[in-house]
């Protein structure tokens, strides 16, 4: 395939342009976190400052919303991570009656429009008079994340060879020991990727959360509400920090993977 099917240079530039397009609004967001705006609105560039980083937690409700978001995302990551991995393991490793129905439900959950999911969950909570708030948000986030974790882990499981587990069993390991020492380490990358995906889906979710949040605020909800009066620069700073943390985690993760590959 020397020379390629299309001129490489042009396509490379094109790819970079698309990447630039994708990153542009983030650049704008980061830039305006450094804007020395005088009032509570952050719309016109008024000079460079770092002061918003110092005043990051000055808006109590915003901080609380961010804390809620992080907490919900972490819990979602753990709960959906565990439950989804179990489903993924079952579907990838075993052949059993009912697996088709499970696959169908998961497919439906993944391809279902968010607004329909949020609305239908609200109608459940309304019908059974469940008070809305932190826990209903968590329930909804776990609900839509499970399937994503499950398909991720299932795909990982299906690429693996089960003979290792059989060997472990032949050598006298019990089911739990086999799982802990053989299966889990093998599927762990899938579990990790799935859980991180759950975290990302949760912290970014707006539509489903908006339906089921009651009086509880999350970061995206607060931002949405604050557009009434204009976003304070703290939102940009928090967005920037979350972004930076994400980049950092990805980099560290990459480094570890590379070192392991080299070792």
């Amino acid at each position, binding site marked *: 395939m020397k020379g390629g099917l299309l001129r490489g240079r042009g396509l490379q530039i094109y790819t970079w342009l698309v990447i630039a397009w994708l990153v542009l609004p983030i650049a704008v967001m980061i830039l305006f976190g450094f804007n020395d705006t*005088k*009032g*509570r*609105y952050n*719309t*016109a560039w008024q000079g460079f400052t770092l002061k918003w980083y110092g005043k990051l937690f*000055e*808006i*109590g*409700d915003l901080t*609380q919303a961010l804390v809620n978001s992080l907490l919900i995302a972490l819990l979602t990551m753990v709960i959906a991570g565990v439950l989804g991995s179990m489903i*993924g393991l079952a579907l990838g490793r075993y052949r059993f009656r009912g697996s*088709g*129905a499970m*696959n*169908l*439900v998961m*497919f439906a959950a*993944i391809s279902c429009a968010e607004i329909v999911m949020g609305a239908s969950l609200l109608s459940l*909570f*309304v*019908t059974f*008079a*469940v*008070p*809305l*708030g932190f826990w209903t948000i968590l329930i909804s986030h776990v609900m839509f994340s499970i399937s*994503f974790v*499950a*398909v*991720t*882990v*299932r*795909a*990982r499981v299906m*690429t693996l060879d089960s003979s290792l587990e059989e060997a472990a069993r032949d050598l006298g390991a019990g089911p739990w020991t086999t799982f802990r020492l053989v299966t889990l380490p093998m599927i762990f*990358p*899938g579990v*990790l*990727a*799935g859980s991180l*995906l759950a975290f990302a889906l949760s912290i970014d979710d707006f539509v489903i959360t*908006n339906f089921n949040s*009651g*009086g*509880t*605020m999350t970061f995206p909800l607060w931002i*949405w*509400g*604050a*557009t*009434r*009066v*204009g976003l304070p620069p703290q939102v940009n700073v928090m967005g920037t920090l979350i972004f930076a943390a994400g980049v950092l985690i*990805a980099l560290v*993760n*990459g*480094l570890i*993977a*590379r070192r392991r590959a080299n070792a």
Partner: protein
Amino acid sequence: MNVPFRQDPALLRGMTQRRLGRRDAFRLAGLSAAGLALAACGVQGKGTAKPSTSAQAQSEVEKFWSGKAKNGHVDFANWPYYMDPKQPELKQFTQQTGITVNYKEVILEMPSWFAKIQPQLAAGQSIGYDLMVVTNGLHFDQLVQLGFLAPLDHSKLPNFAANAAEQYKNESFDPGNVYSIPWASGMTGIAYNPKYVDTPPTSIAELWNPKYKGKVGMMSDSQEIANFGLFAVGVDPDTSTEADWEKAAAKLKEQRDGGIVRKYYDQAYMDPLAKGDIWLTMAWSGDVFQKNISDGTDLKFVVPQEGGTIWTDNMTIPKTAANPVDAIMLMDFFYDVNIAARLAEYINYVTPVPAAKDVIVADAAKASGDDKKLLEEVASSPLVFPTPEDTARLRSYVKFKTPQEQKKFESIFQAITTS
């Protein structure tokens, strides 16, 4: 450098594969049918009759308040930017009474707030707040009709009795302040950016002026936009009928289909106005004042000669509140003249305590520099202390006698805004 996605192609494969058969689809359908019977129980409504006589009302009050005691804490739900973020008033309250206040600006718009608390109130559960600020209108009426609000014990509201302006003591949506006392009032009028609009608009007809094609903002809230439609066709919202609504809707439709309206805003119209995306728009008075102060913009606000809307945000206690006594103490605290003045200085909406003006004037005399200028502006602002001429032109939202009427109203005006 690596990312989870790259490192684990299983993830992508997992996300991109699809396995299901037609048989499974039928199975899911069967399951749904089974659940249908279970779900057919419906959503309960909880309408209760309003007390009709004053003796009845008094016994309602006694029934609610008997056995209730101060608990030393209150949870307060309010709208964004409705108090100085440092909350000096609340700190003072805690100092004086020992009651701690958990203040949250969680109410962003009335409909979604109502939708959120309604199931909890219907189930008789606490919504987590003892005090909430509710705008008059549809949802206020529904909260009253559904019996979700605690009747207020006016023996616990001495400051209110002494300091509230007379007009707030007999408002049409809650005569005699049975369930509410005002937090702040505001006007809906026309805001414009003088950079683009040379001749100051005085008539509501300017919102229909083809000169401003594509540069006019309108509100998406049915009650707000209905009032402006009614003003435009010369009908008083208070006495309007269904036929008037249709007429107003036709007028609004003409404005929309003529390409004059850029967008129906739910709330975020101030930024576009300051940036020049829109040149004139329906707006709430306080927003204009706040924007000018914080961003140094020079936006203007007028109450059109045909009429403008006055609305009131009211402090109410949900019936399921855990700490109603603490809540009502806090309510009365805000009617202390000094506290009311401090609040008005920050939030710049119409204060229900007229005597606050003198305090602000006195504060301005003591202050210096920017603060002085700001306080003088607040004290003399017709947006905080409206002129009698403006007040005379202000009208309330349309009121409904039946839910059917309200549904009709919604469908007439939402057909305009959700186009």
